[in-house]
């Protein structure tokens, strides 16, 4: 049986935003991620092309 980790309120790891189940769903949704794959590749290509003359 897995032991649940307790995060204490005064520790650093208590404060950052944690993804909701909806965010986690979209992170692994095949169609949405396919769109992201092409969009991010396009962004990277733009950076590569612009970056040096």
């Amino acid at each position, binding site marked *: 049986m*897995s*032991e*649940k*980790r307790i*995060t204490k309120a005064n*520790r*650093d*790891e*208590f*404060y*950052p*935003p*944690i*993804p909701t189940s909806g965010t986690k769903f*979209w*992170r*692994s949704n*095949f169609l949405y*991620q*396919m769109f*992201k*794959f092409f969009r*991010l*590749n396009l*962004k*990277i*290509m*733009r*950076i*590569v*092309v*612009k*970056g*040096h*003359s």
Partner: protein
Amino acid sequence: MRYTKKNRRFTYNSQANPIQDIRMKIVVLGAGISGHTAAALLKKKLGRQHEVIVVSPSEYYQWIPSNIWVGVGRMSVEQVRFKLPRVYDRWGIVFKQAKAVSIHPEGDEEIKSGFVSVEYTSEGNKGKKEKVAYDFLVNATGPKLNFEATPGLGPGKNSLSVCSCDHASHTWDELKKAIGLMKQGKKQRFLIGTGHPKATCQGAAFEYALNLAFEFKQRKLSHLADITWISNEYEVGDFGMGGAFIKRGGYITSTKVFTESVLAENNISWIKRAGVIKVEPGLAHYETLDGSSNSVEFDFAMLIPAFAGQGMKGYGKNGEDITSRLFAASGFMLVDADYTPKPFEEWSVSDWPERYQNPSYPNIYATGIAFAPPHSISKPMKSPEGTEIFPSPPRTGMPSGVIGKIVAENISEIIKHGGTNHRHLANMGRMGAACIVSAGYSMTRGLGATMTVSPIVPDWEKYPDWGRDINATVGEIGLAGHWIKIFLHYMFLHKAKGYPFWWLLPE
């Protein structure tokens, strides 16, 4: 620049004379991302008429970004490396498996042109010395992994590394043992991060921490893993580039929030502003910026060492030591950067080099990690005891490839058309970079954080609000990031192996 055949040496002349009728010799030291890119493009542009020689102590090319997956057993060593001689034979590049020991830019009594003293490392020739003459020299030796700078750090001592595929393979062997103990119900403490107060490459260590968390989750062992991220960053998410700002959820937010979120989601605790000063078996000692000395216990530690130059020397014509004209105190090569010491507030993108040309010897260039940066990108910080605790600037991956490319283009244009003009420039204050941080290896359940910044060095004059182009700076996590990382792995190996249309692929 004028080349005179008589003494095989460059002299400056206002006339621009093409030197394409003379067989030129271009020596590239190192066959990593930058050196291999430079050598491949030089040969492609200059053809058979000119000679390209690569000197590297290893006969392998390795795609270093994928070492993370070797370290968690998702890839074998052979999947991330290949032998160079076969590729270089096909391209007509001369390969010498040797280590560069010293540079002699003015030649000596025997050789009139500049030359590099090398010592062979290949079986059969081990220890043999040779003088390799050059007309142009590209220093792309990469860093020396300076484990010695932190007592007790490194493979064979008290910590592990993923900086080379051999290190990563050894790390996987140790991880298997830890997983074995966890399967027996024994809790294991993992310490991942930077192993020196001025180490860089936080991204690689961060990737490894996330991959560990993913692997434990897949094996349903997360409850037995206590993972701690230790870093010399002032805030996590600095990554040696002073952090960045990204558009996220309707806000412009810093990479600190993004990185802390990813760490917290994976149950990874963190220690920041920490310079590891000593590693003992199962115990790492560190000093923090507030001056306190602490230690943290571990069962498994993967800590990135400091980087230094390769320690090559420089000698003049009469054997006098000219190392200080070629190299900075760190051992990295001096180039066309502004090395004048200035306070952080006066730093500018114009301090950064754009041609990567040595100021004393214009036919010598340094690319990738081998060039000496003018200063860090992150703000320098000192503890009350005087220990400098902040990341050194990153120059790996995309910038290394781009710098290798523009240096090759400039050299080939000088050889073909003469002149001293460098048409191709790559200032890190104008160049962007993409960093794909793997957060789990699986085509359906994997994750990757895609981070892009443009430019790498913040330009506060051009972008007074955020230092960078906010529309080009991205931080996203998802399955697509993993696909991109896999895609880049195969794409860059295809390119490095010189398979069809390799030259069309970007750096």
